[in-house]
């Protein structure tokens, strides 16, 4: 299958602020019409990367390409991107109409055309009847949509979103998520979306780039990242509650390799690994809590049961470690004190001591 030339490209881009390396040798290829999320904890460099693409920062090293054009030396005005800021940046002294029309006004579009275009975009975003109001006179969700309208009114080549939903309350956030995803699919514009919320990234993106301490540590579709995380960091970051990680070590044995944890061990038949410290990982939905021991069960002690409505979240202590298990049941499980944990052995991961995945 021939890949199309990437629409947005970062080649070995780095950005240094004084002594701090905010973005460390990042290379990314983002395809046309793709919804690409940059995901990572606070301070990992994702916002800086976005600002580099926008032109608000200049890379210390590396080149940036948009639609085949080298934009590294171009100021933001000439890059033809649309950006939505975390605080929306709606000008308080202009009405929503004037805010949205601003990019067109700068491009000296004739007023009649501006009006037509603004109304078109605003009705698409369901704020057409609010155009005469000031930003302070509309709700947070409406402000957010006005900011989106302004970003797309001049039909840019790329949309850039910097955590646009973080100022909305939880319910609005879910609505906005679906709305934005649908909008993006409809308009078909390449979108780069920065967030620290892994559920948001998973729900909305075609592909996710996970960043950690200035580097891209994995790129892939949401499911790829979820099922095949390359590292402990990625594994623990995606999924809520996060993957359970237990420390232990590998020991060679006669017919394979044995993972030795604090209170249990697992034999991997016919597999050979280096001996040494490793981590075992499994997701909370891939384990079961039972009252009686069975062939592959691990002793544990129940800590808490949290009823979440659609499921129950159990916290257990296994040896010195704490793990979570999601349980889907209609009735409240009746566990007390000593219990047994059953792992789905087809769904476990092993990470070496640097955090790199070595199994499966």
């Amino acid at each position, binding site marked *: 299958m021939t890949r199309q030339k990437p629409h947005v490209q970062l080649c070995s881009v780095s950005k240094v602020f004084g002594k701090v390396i905010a973005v460390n040798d990042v290379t990314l290829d983002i395809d046309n019409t793709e919804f690409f999320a940059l995901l990572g904890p606070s301070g990992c460099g994702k916002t800086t990367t976005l600002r580099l693409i926008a*032109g*608000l920062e200049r890379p210390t090293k590396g080149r940036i390409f948009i639609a085949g054009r080298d934009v590294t030396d171009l100021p933001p*005005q000439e890059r033809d991107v649309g950006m939505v800021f975390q605080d929306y940046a709606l000008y308080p002294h202009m009405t929503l109409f004037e805010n949205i029309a601003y990019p067109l006004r*700068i491009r000296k579009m004739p007023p009649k055309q501006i009006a037509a275009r603004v109304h078109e975009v605003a009705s698409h975003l369901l704020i057409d009847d609010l155009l005469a109001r000031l930003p302070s006179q509309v709700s947070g969700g409406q402000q957010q949509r006005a900011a989106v309208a302004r970003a797309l009114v001049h039909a840019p080549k790329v949309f850039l979103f910097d955590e646009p939903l973080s100022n909305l309350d939880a319910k609005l956030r879910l609505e906005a998520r679906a709305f934005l995803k649908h909008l993006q699919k409809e308009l078909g514009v390449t979108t780069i979306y920065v967030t620290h919320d892994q559920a948001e990234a998973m729900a909305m993106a075609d592909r996710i780039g996970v960043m950690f301490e200035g580097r891209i540590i994995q790129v892939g579709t949401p499911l790829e990242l979820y099922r095949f995380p390359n590292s402990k960091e990625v594994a623990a970051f995606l999924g809520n509650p996060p993957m359970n990680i237990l420390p232990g070590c590998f020991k060679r044995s006669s017919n394979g390799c044995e993972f030795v944890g604090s209170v249990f061990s697992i034999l991997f038949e016919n597999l050979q690994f280096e001996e040494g410290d490793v981590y075992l990982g499994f997701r909370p939905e891939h384990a079961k809590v039972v009252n009686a021991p069975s062939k592959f069960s691990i002793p544990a002690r129940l800590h808490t049961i949290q009823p979440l409505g659609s499921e129950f979240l159990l916290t257990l202590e296994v040896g010195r470690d704490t793990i979570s298990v999601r349980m889907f049941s209609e009735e409240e499980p009746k566990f007390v004190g000593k219990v047994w944990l059953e792992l789905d052995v087809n769904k476990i991961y092993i990470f070496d001591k640097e955090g790199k995945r070595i199994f499966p």
Partner: protein
Amino acid sequence: MRVKARKWGYKLFIVLFSLFILFFFVLPLLWLLTAPFDTKATLRVSLPSTFTFNNFRTIFANAFAIRALFNSIVIAGGTMVGVTLFATLAAYAVSRLKIRGRDILTYLLVLFSSVVQGTAAMVPIFLLLYRLKLVDTHLGVIFVLVGGLLPTGIFLMRDFVESIPRSYEESALVSGAKPAQVLRHVVVPVLRPGIMVLAVWSFVQAWGDFLISLIVIRSPTKMPAPIAIYSFYTEGGTPVLTLVSAYALIYALPVVGLYLFVNWRFGFRFFGGIKGSGR
């Protein structure tokens, strides 16, 4: 019950104290409200024996007096324009440019402007204006006032500028605006309250200036109001109270008007810190 009595006693004390303070501040000013309307004005504060507007008519008929008021407007207005314009530009640049040690620099400047104030700088300023051939000019007075007010003005403005999120300007840049357009379309409109505060403050400071005009202005036609008022004296050297009081009132009224305006628009308060220098 004891607590209640104490509370009421306390409240009464506060009311009496407040009334006392109110009288304290108002009393000395009463003369300015009675004497100008009296044909036979004395230094006494009393309801005018013969109420009249004649004093004001005399002043408005006096070309010299009107000219002096006009001179004051020129000086205060020029200073206002200079301080507002330059301080805003400078504050914006200081805030958005990455200058090393700009905090220390600002503090140092404010320090210097409070050190070099009043009569301390008079001698070199006079000699300086003499060399620049600006003695006895309004421009000279304006320049000196602007130079003296700028540090505090920049200090005032910087707070306003810092409170504008950088995302406003960045969003304008991404929308395609050049820096000058960003300033014109986004920054200045959002800064408007701060600019107004700065304009009013610098106008009031310059309007009340006495010392610099006294030293720099020599010709009677150029004298501003606070100097001109001393011409309403008899040959014997005593002030003509009807005219002096009326003129002082006219001279004071714009400041009162500006205060009422600022108070109505913004509320005259210090927002949790020092904003503004004074006498």
